[in-house]
């Protein structure tokens, strides 16, 4: 077990290394493609005339004149040891975790991220709970009576839900519950300040996001459950004289949900940094919103920061999935 976890963590480090290399290379390639000074992508402007000594000094300060591997090392070590950043007029000192400074927003990337991350995490965790419960419930009920009205209704509904995009369901929910009924307050409130307000602000985005995933998970649960119901050990469980509920919940669901754990981990990990549409529709200042703003402003430090955070989330989720899987299924060799 210990060896297994250590192995997975080492694997995670390798993945993060590659992510950091790729993000770093974007810094190298973007100026070449757009024929602008690399300084532009850091500061959002080119403060000095091309070829002027001041610009050269700035370039030197960023280390753009150094060999690429050395630049990479400075970038990575800078995250831990901190760096001094300047656009020629303002000088910023950033400490660990130093992911850079956005001159557009006049804010350290790390503090932007710490503001945005709780919003995204609130959104994703809440939606995940909803879609898991809803999807598994609908899928299981459908699988128990394949071909029945309940099954067809459930699967029809989920097919509809899969085909409806969030930018349709989101505004619809807003229209009904907020503008018409006035039940719900739109502005995000951190859970630490006002749990009820937090709930009120998140409930619509949760449903909008969960709707799509619940549909996918219902279909997945149904097919896994149907397969599990045909397994020999389910017959054994009945042959022991167990009642139907024990057979289905204890023996069936446990096996049917195991593959879903894997998919859930990946879905959840991916989602953390990419709930752009949901956040935009509901005006939530989460990671997705942050990155989409940064993209439109060509604010590279923020884009890189979000990318790194999203990658870490995905990698961590994967490690957790593997460990969970090993606990659920004793056949997985540790």
């Amino acid at each position, binding site marked *: 077990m210990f060896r297994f976890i250590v192995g997975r963590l080492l694997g995670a480090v390798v993945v993060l290394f590659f992510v950091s290399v790729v993000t770093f290379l974007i810094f190298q390639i973007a100026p070449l493609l757009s024929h602008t000074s690399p300084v532009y992508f850091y500061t959002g402007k080119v403060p000095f005339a091309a070829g002027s000594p001041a610009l050269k000094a700035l370039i030197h300060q960023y280390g753009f004149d150094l060999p690429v591997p050395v630049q990479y090392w400075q970038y990575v070590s800078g995250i831990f040891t901190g760096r001094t950043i300047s656009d020629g007029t303002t000088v910023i000192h950033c400490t660990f975790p130093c992911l850079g400074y956005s001159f557009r927003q006049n804010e350290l990337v790390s503090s932007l991220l710490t503001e945005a991350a709780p919003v995204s995490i609130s959104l994703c965790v809440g939606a995940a709970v909803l879609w898991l419960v809803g999807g598994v419930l609908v899928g299981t009920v459908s699988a128990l009576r394949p071909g029945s009205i309940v099954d067809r209704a459930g699967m029809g509904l989920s097919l509809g839900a899969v085909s409806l995009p969030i930018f349709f369901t989101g505004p619809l929910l807003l229209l009904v519950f907020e503008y018409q009924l006035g039940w719900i307050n739109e502005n995000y409130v951190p859970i630490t300040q006002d749990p009820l307000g937090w709930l009120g602000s998140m409930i619509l985005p949760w449903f909008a996001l969960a709707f799509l995933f619940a549909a996918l998970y219902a279909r997945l649960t149904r097919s896994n459950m149907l397969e599990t119901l045909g397994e*020999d050990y389910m*017959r*054994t469980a009945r*042959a*022991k*004289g*167990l009642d139907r509920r024990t057979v289905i919940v204890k023996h069936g669901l446990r096996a049917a949900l195991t593959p879903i754990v894997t998919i859930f981990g990946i879905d959840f990990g991916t989602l953390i940094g990419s709930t752009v549409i949901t956040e935009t529709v509901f005006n939530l200042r989460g990671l997705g919103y942050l990155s989409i703003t940064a993209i439109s402003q060509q604010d590279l430090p923020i884009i890189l920061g979000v990318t790194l955070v999203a990658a870490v989330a995905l990698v961590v989720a994967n490690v957790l999935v593997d460990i969970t899987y090993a606990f659920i*299924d004793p056949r997985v060799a540790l």
Partner: protein
Amino acid sequence: MTDTQAPPVRTPESNDEALLRVEDLRVHFPTGDGLVKSVDGLSFSLRRGEILGIVGESGSGKSVTSQAILGLHKGSKARVSGSIWFEGTDLVAASEHEMRAFRGDQMAMIFQDPLSAMHPFFKIGDQIAEAYLVHNKVSKRDARQRTIEMLQKVGIPNAAGRYDDYPHQLSGGMRQRAMIAMALICRPKLLIADEPTTALDVTVQAQILELIKDLRDELDSAVILITHDLGVVAETCDQVVVMYGGQAVEQGSVAELFAQPEMPYTWGLLASMPRMDRVRSTRLMPIPGSPPSLINVPNGCVFNPRCRFSDRVPGRKCFTEHPELSPTTGSASPLAVHEVRCHIPAEERQQILLTEIRPTL
């Protein structure tokens, strides 16, 4: 083959009443292609302490029969009719709720592949104890104790240590022993073993069959042994039912049926088997054709499309009239029960067996 004398049928004096009586059992599955008649009019009875073999090839309906006895078709689309009398209760009419009290307690089942028949995520000990806990109001500690005793009884070494193993950690033979422990933990009166040794090696098969016989003696249970292997039947069983196309085509005591087989399908089975105890003087004689469709069952005798002897029956009776299961006349002992479903006249059957079949076996 040498003829045998009076069959060594077990006759328990204490309990002459049949424990299980299956009468005209039919299990039909509606499908998109039509009604699949998996079991179509099967009758047999079984006393305590007896081992009944049900033998047949894939699709003959033998496994479906065993599941019908346990009521496992309840809640599915299968249509079950006829009756299965178990100590005065008709299991066909019983509700799923009533059946649950029988399953695992009065009657239990072991399956062909113990690896897939045990839940991969649970410890074998817990799976066995679960079977005990459903039917007995005891503490988990007592159930664990009982499980360990049972594991010892079925010959698993270091039973207490094995309790916490998962199915994949045991060898095939040990897994099947654990499965048997699970089936017998409530001391059932009826044990159904569905191809219990097919997935196992011969030396392990010998151990498992021996174990089943020992436990039968100890619990005085009745056993239904479903198999495709006539050798296993000859070794283990007292009674045998030969199934083909969902019907019993020949049934009787093992000694009688092997000494004097009378149904052309049984002959076909015997003639197509290579023998370990001798080298055949001729080639194997496969049964021509393929098993019948269970949707469009042939008119008349279910075996007629593959039977070499239907021309011996006057007037195409084999193709028009469904033969009844009727007692044979050629048996060595007048007491022996031996029935066969065949239109060929009894004397002619014995003649064919003597002159045409015997020499080729």
